């Protein structure tokens, strides 16, 4: 907290000391004055990138951290952009991955743009913010190289494009990326991803909360609500890492039962169900429209998970979409089957993340070997 607190204090003093003596009502002129001020604000706002205005947000700090690492990693060799949610955040140590790739002859630099609870729109935003943040020179140099995008496959986010947005902490941060076009795309993806309602009333009951939530976040985005709420200019330079190793295990998580269920599932899986992913497709189309010009190729990754339904989704997803790395085969999963590797059925601990990163490095090297 620093001198920025003086700005609202001055506003308070300004409003407190002013007295109105306006005998005649000039409603139209006053309304026009308010509209002009708000329009001018919105005009200036439109020129400021979201990550610059919301400089203290987790997304902005993460992007700054990755830009810094990227700049330190030198040039050439191509770039791998990894996006995802908490699974990628806890399962992939991007520095270790980059080191492993380099040690094995692939000079690819790894940019880790995953974030806890990040849905597909937030991931798209993080990618955009990364490219914007590089600046024109570095961006052009990067685009001259081979840019690969690797996105996490996870049933919850793939089925529901607005997954977790009903929780306060995720809803609160959505204002950072829900600009009008993002909000519209999120609305379309949500609509595409759900079964049609039986009646107009049902439709209204389901869509009204989502529409109002998106509209509210979109307005907050445009008016920069909360952009300076930390009142701390030192956060302008604050960076956050994208990989967080977990320790211990989640309360209530029963490793043995989950591992037994996983083994049983591997032994006799019923026929794969084909996932319906219209919401995901809409979100993907939006991402391609926003970042397609910067990306040379895209692929998906199904990180190791021991909850059977997560893995089932990854396998089914591979059947529908293709181009997916993982999930690890039954044999490969043996190395992961240890209580010390799992925080819960889907998030590895730091030790599990090391294994997971090594597995991903092997898969990528194989992939690059085929494609390079």
């Amino acid at each position, binding site marked *: *907290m620093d001198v920025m607190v003086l700005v609202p204090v001055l506003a308070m003093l300004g409003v407190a000391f002013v*007295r109105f003596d306006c005998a005649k009502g000039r409603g139209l002129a006053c309304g026009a004055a308010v509209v002009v001020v708000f329009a001018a604000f919105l005009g200036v706002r439109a020129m400021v990138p979201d990550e610059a205005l919301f400089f203290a947000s987790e997304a902005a700090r993460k992007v700054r951290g990755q830009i810094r690492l990227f700049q330190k990693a030198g040039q050439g060799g191509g770039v791998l952009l990894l996006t995802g949610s908490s699974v990628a955040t806890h399962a992939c140590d991007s520095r270790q991955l980059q080191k492993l790739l380099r040690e094995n002859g692939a000079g690819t630099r790894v940019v880790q743009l995953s974030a806890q609870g990040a849905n597909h729109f937030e991931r798209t935003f993080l990618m955009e913010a990364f490219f914007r943040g590089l600046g024109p020179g570095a961006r052009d140099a990067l685009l001259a190289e081979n840019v690969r995008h690797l996105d996490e496959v996870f049933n919850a986010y793939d089925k529901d494009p607005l997954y977790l947005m009903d929780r306060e902490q995720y809803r609160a941060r959505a204002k950072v990326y829900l600009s009008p076009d993002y909000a519209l795309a999120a609305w379309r993806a949500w609509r595409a991803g759900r079964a049609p309602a039986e009646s107009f009333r049902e439709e209204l009951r389901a869509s009204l909360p989502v529409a109002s939530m998106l509209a509210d976040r979109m307005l907050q985005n445009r008016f920069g609500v*909360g952009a300076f709420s930390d009142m701390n200019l030192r956060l302008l330079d604050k960076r956050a890492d994208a990989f967080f190793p977990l320790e211990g295990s989640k309360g209530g998580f029963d490793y043995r039962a989950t591992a037994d269920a996983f083994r049983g599932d591997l032994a006799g899986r019923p026929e794969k169900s084909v996932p319906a992913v219209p919401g995901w497709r809409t979100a993907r189309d939006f991402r391609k429209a926003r970042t397609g010009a910067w990306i040379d190729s895209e692929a998906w990754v199904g990180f190791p998970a021991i909850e059977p339904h997560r893995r089932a989704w990854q396998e089914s997803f591979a059947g529908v979409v293709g181009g997916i790395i993982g999930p690890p085969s039954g044999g490969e999963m043996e190395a992961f089957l240890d209580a010390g590797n799992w925080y819960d059925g889907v998030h590895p601990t730091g030790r599990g993340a090391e294994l997971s990163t090594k597995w991903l490095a092997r898969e990528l090297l194989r992939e690059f070997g085929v494609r390079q």
Partner: protein
Amino acid sequence: MIFNSLAFLCFALVVVPTFWALRSDRWRHPLLFAANFVFYGWWDWRFTGLLLGVVVMSWGCGLWVAGSPAGGRRRAALLWSCAFQLAVLGYFKYTDFFIASVRSAFAGFGVELGWTTLNIILPAGVSFYIFQAISYLASVSAGSIPVERNFLRLGVYLGFFPHLVAGPIIRAHQFLPQLASARVFDTALFWEGCRKFVLGFLYKTVFADNLAAAINPIWAAPNGRSGAEVFGAVLGFYGQIYFDFAGYSLMAIGAANWLGYTIPENFRFPYLAASVVDFWRRWHISLSLWLRDYLYIPLGGNRLGEARRFANLMATMLLGGLWHGASWNFVLWGGLHGAALSVNHIWSTRRERAGTRPPSVAGKWAGVAAAWVLTQAFVMACWVPFRAESFGDSVVIFQALAAFFIGNGGSAAGFPWMLAVVPILADTFLVSRSESTRGAVIRKPVLGALLLALAVLTAFLFMRGELVPFIYFQF
């Protein structure tokens, strides 16, 4: 619905222009009556029935009281009417508290009663509109206002949306006459309403909510915190509760002004007070006056001797504490203030009797400064049981504060000291002067609109995105 929400903006944009577009109260009152229920029902529509029930009960009881012959029968009618109102309040607010207290008291003697609490949801603002209903009935009984035979008008008064859920508690004689005369659009009042609303919006969304975000984690788990952190949390709450409640009151007054009504002020810079008596003349004025007129004075006030006066003060403040919430912490808070008010009165009386010669100017200022520091330190300390989650947490916090003041407080890295100190000082010592200073007078409405729009945009940038409920909603 809360004032700092998009829903309220839409609500106000419909209600206020429609109100003024309607030519007479014949249509305006039904509009306000309906608007009150929409405003209240937005939070939980089931409780609109409760509000309607209280209005019906108050209307019927008012007719009963007015129709009873003056004297004992009217008094009995009033007492029964108040008892009905208090029964509603007691059921929703104190049933679970009573069950839990009796159960734990018996458990202390090793007797398990096996009673379970009913998990009754407390309807927002029930304490406020019940108190207003009682003030209406008492005024009718005393003959200071005529009984309101128009059901709709009484409903508008009791449920008037600007002050419905967190006050100020408006007396019937302050508001019903306003409803009896047709409102005429007053540009100056409208602008004053806008100014107050924006000032309250800044108080609440920027200062109170940002302080809440900084201090809530400390209050939630005070164990193991450094003395400096705990002191920061106490100082932060000292500012937060003021900005939160004074901000709400300003917004309520402003919203009423938009419709051409006036509501009395609820705060008069309480952190300027140099005595506890003065503090209660400045803090939550509508409640202080209500407690004085409907509890302290009926109990005998200061008319029955010193000892009875202090007993009345204690009883009033203990019940005032309990009004804030069904918790022993609030009772303790009220008791501390009751004791301090008694000490304050004894001190003043003795000084007057002693007739000491007037001090020098420097001595007078030093005395005022010392009294101010002492009063505000006391007020701040009393906020600890008010805010703490439990009595045990209060003890932990006082221990940490003691460590802080003996120089063993550790550090509070990252605590927003500027936010905790600068706005409250600016408000107490600068904004308080705005009432006596002429200030900048704006005669061109367009300039006023520009200024307020800029202030709102500043609030947007500095406020938190998520809605933080007003503290007094829980009361």
